[in-house]
Structures are given as C-alpha cells and as structure tokens.
C-alpha cells in the first residue's frame, strides 16, 4: 500500500491552502481552471493533475468538439490518465437533463454502446481512459444484467481501466441491504487503477445516506483498506469531495486519515 498515491480534488475556493499544502500527491480536476484563479499556476506546477471533468456521456459517440476538449484538458494537466463515468443523464435529443450522474440500463444494447464509444474515445486520447462506476438509488425493471457483470464484460471487451468509486459501492450495498465487502467482491477489481473515497451523510429527500462533502467514516476507510488489498494494479486513492461547502480542515484531515489507514 506504500506505493499508492493519495490525493484529493482541486477545490478552487481552497486554492491558497492547497497551493501551500503537504501530504497530497495529486489533485483531480472536476472543472477547468478559471481564468481569474490566482492559485492555478502554483497548483499546476506543484501537483500531478488528473483529468476528471465531464467529457460527455458515452452512451453516444463523443463529437469532435468534446474530443478536442478532452485532449486539450489532458494536455494542460499532463494527466496520467483520463476519467469518465458510466452515466447516461440526458435524453438523446437533449430535452431532459438531470445534471447529476445517473447510470445507464445494464443491458446488452448499452454495453455495446459504451464499449464502442469508450473505445473510440480511447483511440483519440494520448492517455489511458479509466471509467467510474455510478450508483443507482432504485432498481429499474429494464436493466437485464447485474452491474458487476456488466462492468466486467465492459472491461474485458475494452481493456480500459476501472476507477472504483467506493462510496458508490457502499451506497448500493446499503440500499440493497447487502454487505459492502461481499458486494465489492463481485466487481472486476483487477482492473482498478484509481479508487475514490468519500463521506456520506443523511439526505432528507432520499431519507437515507448519500455522497456528501464530509470526511469518510471509519467503516468507509475499512472498506477502502479491504478494497486496496484486492486491487493489485491500483495506483492512486483520491478523496472525492468537490463542493463550495467543503472546508480545508475536512479535506486535509480526510487525506491524512486515508494515508494513516493505508499506512502510507
């Protein structure tokens, strides 16, 4: 576990603190840097940066505009890999948009779509593409395959890397009433390149826990240690919190706790 890099997301409102911080190996970039961000030059100089923007939903092929944007951001960050999500959040005609990660139906048709479109994107990138799992809050009758099976078949077909979001696994297990470690074991962990770790908190609409910009619990850190031991190709663990409400204390304390749990 000592070789794993441990990092966080770049939160521009914490730019000054991050520019002078120690103990953080990398920063994931969820948005391009703002032109008026005074800390961006230092951040770029100091950190390994991971491209983790919204590039497009891979249920459809990315157009040239989106591909060129992905290429230029990856070059700007000198990102060692490029991340996208297994998500399908807007309708094909653009009329309806959830503006939030939402998984596709786990079917043969969507497997074909994602495999073809992710492979096409990979062919246009100079860096490896990794794909992140997305949690479902409810089951959909039209989903035909279990998510872990669908993901395994996707990775076998494309040979891409897996960005394993552990809170997403934990939440799905919670809402299924399953043991998170047992559920985790069904996923293709040998494909994992990066892991996300974060906190959860109670949401009033969901009437249960959901991802939040808070510190990971001891249970989540225990799941992380369990997962890392089963991900032989993992290179990095990232504290996944990106929000204007995230405080510097929570960010730095969370990264420190992740390091301590990993004995890193």
């Amino acid at each position, binding site marked *: 576990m000592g070789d794993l890099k441990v990092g966080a997301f770049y939160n521009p409102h914490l730019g000054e603190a991050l520019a002078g911080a120690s103990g953080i190996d990398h920063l994931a970039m969820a948005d391009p840097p703002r032109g008026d961000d005074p800390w961006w030059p230092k951040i770029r100089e100091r950190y390994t940066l991971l491209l983790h923007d919204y590039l497009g939903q891979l249920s459809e092929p990315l157009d040239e505009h989106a591909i060129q944007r992905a290429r230029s951001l990856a070059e700007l960050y000198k990102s060692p890999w490029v991340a996208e999500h297994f998500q399908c959040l807007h309708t094909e005609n653009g009329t309806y948009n*959830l*503006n939030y990660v939402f998984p596709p139906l786990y079917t043969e048709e969507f497997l074909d779509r994602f495999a073809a479109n992710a492979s096409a994107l990979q062919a246009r990138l100079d860096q490896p593409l990794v794909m992140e799992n997305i949690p479902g809050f409810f089951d959909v009758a039209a989903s035909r395959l279990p998510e872990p099976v669908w993901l395994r078949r996707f990775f076998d077909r494309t040979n891409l890397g897996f960005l394993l979001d552990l809170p997403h696994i934990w939440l799905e297990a919670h809402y299924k009433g399953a043991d998170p470690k047992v559920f985790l074991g069904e996923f293709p962990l040998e494909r994992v390149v990066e892991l996300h770790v974060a906190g959860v908190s109670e949401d009033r609409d969901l009437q249960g826990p959901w991802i939040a910009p808070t510190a990971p619990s001891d249970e989540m850190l225990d799941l992380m240690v369990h997962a890392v031991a089963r991900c032989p190709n993992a290179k990095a663990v990232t504290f996944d919190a990106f929000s204007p409400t995230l405080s510097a204390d929570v960010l730095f304390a969370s990264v420190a706790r992740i390091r301590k749990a990993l004995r890193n």
Partner: protein
Amino acid sequence: MSDRAVQDALIRALADAPFRGSPAWRTRELANQERLERFARFLARHYYYERLAHFFKYSRALARVTGRPPEAVLTSPAFDALLPTLVLGSRASAVAVAGLAQEHVRGGATAAVPYLEDLLAYEHGMMVVESGARLWRDGSPDPADQQRSKPVRVEGTMLLDLQVDLPLVLPLLLRPWTEVPQAPRRPTRLLIARSRRGRVSVARTSSAIATLLELADGRKTMDDLAREAGLRPAELEATLDELVEIGAVRFSTGS
C-alpha cells in the same frame, strides 16, 4: 422500443414531475414509484442549487449584509410546493425558482444595496435565459444556419434595462470588501443570450443592436434590417456575426 428509448423515458420521469405523475409513466412500472419520487426530489434540489449558486452568486456575496443567501429557498416550504410542478431545465421552472430566490433576498436587510432590484433582475434573467433544451453533440448543420438570408432573434434572448451600470460592480462583489461596493447610477442596457450548447453570454448593448434584435423576426431581409436599423451592410454583417456567435440570432430560411 430500444433500451435507449427506455432510458430516455426514465430520465424524463426523473426530470419532469407532471410526467412522473401521469398514467403514461405509472403504467409502465419500470421502477418503484416511491423511490423514484424520492430520487427525483433529490435531483431537483441539486439541479436548482447548482443554478442558484452560479447565477445568484452576487446576491450570495451580499448575504452577510442582507442575511438572505439565495439558495436557502431550496429548503423552504415554497420550494417544496413547487416540486410537483417542476420540469428540470424548463423555462417555466427556471422562472418559478429564480422568482422564489428574488423574493427571499428582497425580504432581507437591503438598505445598503440600493441597486438590489437591478441585481436581482440580472440574476433572474441569467438563470432564465440558461434554461431550455441544449445541443449536446454536433449534428448535421442546421439548415437554418447555413442560409444567411433572414435573421431571427432566438427565443429566450433577453434585453435588460437597468438603472445602474451593474457590470462595473459585479466583479467587486466577489472580491473581499468591508463596505458594500456601489454601482454608478447610469442607464444600462444588457443583452443576455445562450448558445445552442448552453453557454450564457452577457453584453452591453447599443441602441442599434437593440433595434436590430427587435426587428429580427425572420421575415425581414438583410437589406430591410440595414435600412431600418440605420446600419451599413458591413456593420450589419459584423454585428450579426457576433449575435449569432453568442446565440442571440440565427438565420431563418424564410420559408
């Protein structure tokens, strides 16, 4: 029906509350309706949080004076009452939610912000103009954009008349301040438009541009516009290029 079409129906059900409650959706029995409703409400609060945080950021910066952060409306009974009517991304829903935020901020300590009404009109306008379906991928070029014959003002493009020179004070509000930055009192007209990809632009507007936008109804030719707006052909071309770029004008085929 393809799986993609089923996914579209699911996305619509999560985004469109009236559809979610309709027999057309309920009889499909694709998901547990109670859990879907909970997730849809979560999504709605998240969707409008992001928009209020972005478009009402100046009112947010003033909240330490007014005591009214705009996003606080999202946990109010008034927002809960809107939930059964909301269609994420629709203009009507943007008007309703932005209106709630306006009312909320107006109810605070506003004496130190004499230009508050202008500011709220600007923030409301930005949020409303941003709404509507957007282009997610390049498709075939729109034939209406290829034939430069009759310009037409794009639906939703807004001209905003203000009492103060608001653009001068906006950046100051986002920097550290001890006394509320003030805006020079000077009539100012702004154009707010959105590109097909959803990018919102704001520009100061001359009376010639305002006239041009009022005249661009898809029936008048370039010659008509040049004559009626008092612009030379080269000026008209250049102005229209800029307006097309920001999404305020497109070209109609005139058919």
